[in-house]
């Protein structure tokens, strides 16, 4: 495993297989919280934090507990519980230790448990970096990087979308297209642009 393989994972999850625009994971907050740039980026950073740590935690659970005990079928259950507990724990810690940070991120953290991007990246990690229930070379680092990349890709899409929507405030959108439908149309155009990245050779 060389550096280029790790770089490829990062580039691939941010641009080519962007979590929102090509895998549709985390679409609800993408439509719901992308009206202004500030909250959109805060949400993105909170998601990045959770996807990265969740990738690391679930990798250990899968590799050290589920596979040795042949309990692979408990993957969904154990992963979602881990994510739920971790998010709850992070919320309490941040609230106590860093109240100013909590003011900026707190409300988004609670929404993250049911964000498909988080469970999505952990499931994807076990699909991609485990072959026949065995970790492939560099599996752990690749999982962690994929978690980071997924969050970064999410943040990028949120940032772009919120920038466009802020300007859209001044546009005259036909009445039936206002708000959600036009957001989908813009997302479609962005997704088409991101499709151009799939020609990348990595």
């Amino acid at each position, binding site marked *: 495993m060389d550096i280029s393989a790790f770089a490829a994972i990062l580039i691939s999850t941010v641009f080519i297989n962007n979590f929102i625009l090509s895998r*549709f994971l985390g679409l*609800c907050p993408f439509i719901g919280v992308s009206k202004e740039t500030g909250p959109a980026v805060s949400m993105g950073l909170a998601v990045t934090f959770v996807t990265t740590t969740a990738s690391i935690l679930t990798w250990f659970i899968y590799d050290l507990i589920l596979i040795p005990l042949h309990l692979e079928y408990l993957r969904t259950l154990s992963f*979602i519980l881990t994510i*739920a507990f971790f998010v709850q724990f992070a919320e309490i810690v941040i609230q106590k230790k860093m109240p100013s940070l909590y003011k900026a991120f707190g409300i988004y953290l609670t929404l993250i*448990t049911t964000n498909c991007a988080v469970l999505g990246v952990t499931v994807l990690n076990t699909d991609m970096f485990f072959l026949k229930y065995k970790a492939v070379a560099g599996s752990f680092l690749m999982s962690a990087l994929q978690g980071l990349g997924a969050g970064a890709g999410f943040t990028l899409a949120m940032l772009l979308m919120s920038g466009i929507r802020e300007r859209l405030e001044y546009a005259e959108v036909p009445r039936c297209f206002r708000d*959600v439908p*036009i957001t989908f*149309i813009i997302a479609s155009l962005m997704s*088409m642009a991101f499709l151009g990245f799939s020609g990348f050779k990595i």
Partner: protein
Amino acid sequence: MKTSSELIKGLWNENPTFKMMLGLCPTLAVSTSVVNGLGMGVAATFVLAGSSVIVSMVRHIIPEKVRIPCYIVIIATFVTIIELLMKAYMPLLSRALGMYVPLIVVNCIVLGRAEAFASKAAPVVSAIDALGMGMGFTWALCLISAIREALGNGTILGFGISDYFSPPLFMILAPGALLTIGVLIAAINHFSARKDDKRWT
């Protein structure tokens, strides 16, 4: 009268996809063909109905503060059951839906119904409500996937439409999904707005 209205509200007035805009990730990801859409719809309906009944049955036992983790465990159990059953009896469908089957756990419709309805109602009513919502989700999924399969692949349920139509590929890629749902919601807004206008004048 009341039970039928509980069943029907999910189909249109409170349709999870078009009106409440919940559970969009699987809707868009698997709607590349009608078979996939139908499979996902039925799987989600099973999870919805099962978890709603159980949540409603244990609603007096579970303390308020830990209710969300408990609901998640119940939902994840049903999701894993359907995942294993699909692998055993419908391997092709299970492969086509792939990682989006475990992701039913975080489908906002399921947790949303458990929290908003099943935790406050009797098991039978909850089951009817869940079935209605599931059917609403399924038909929305079938409609979107029918449009995408017809335009993007030139087929419906695998049968060719016409030899003279060369389908634009992008309809079954990601942008096509976002475009389809955007236009559909706009169309629904347009017609329901017109109905409202008539009522007012």
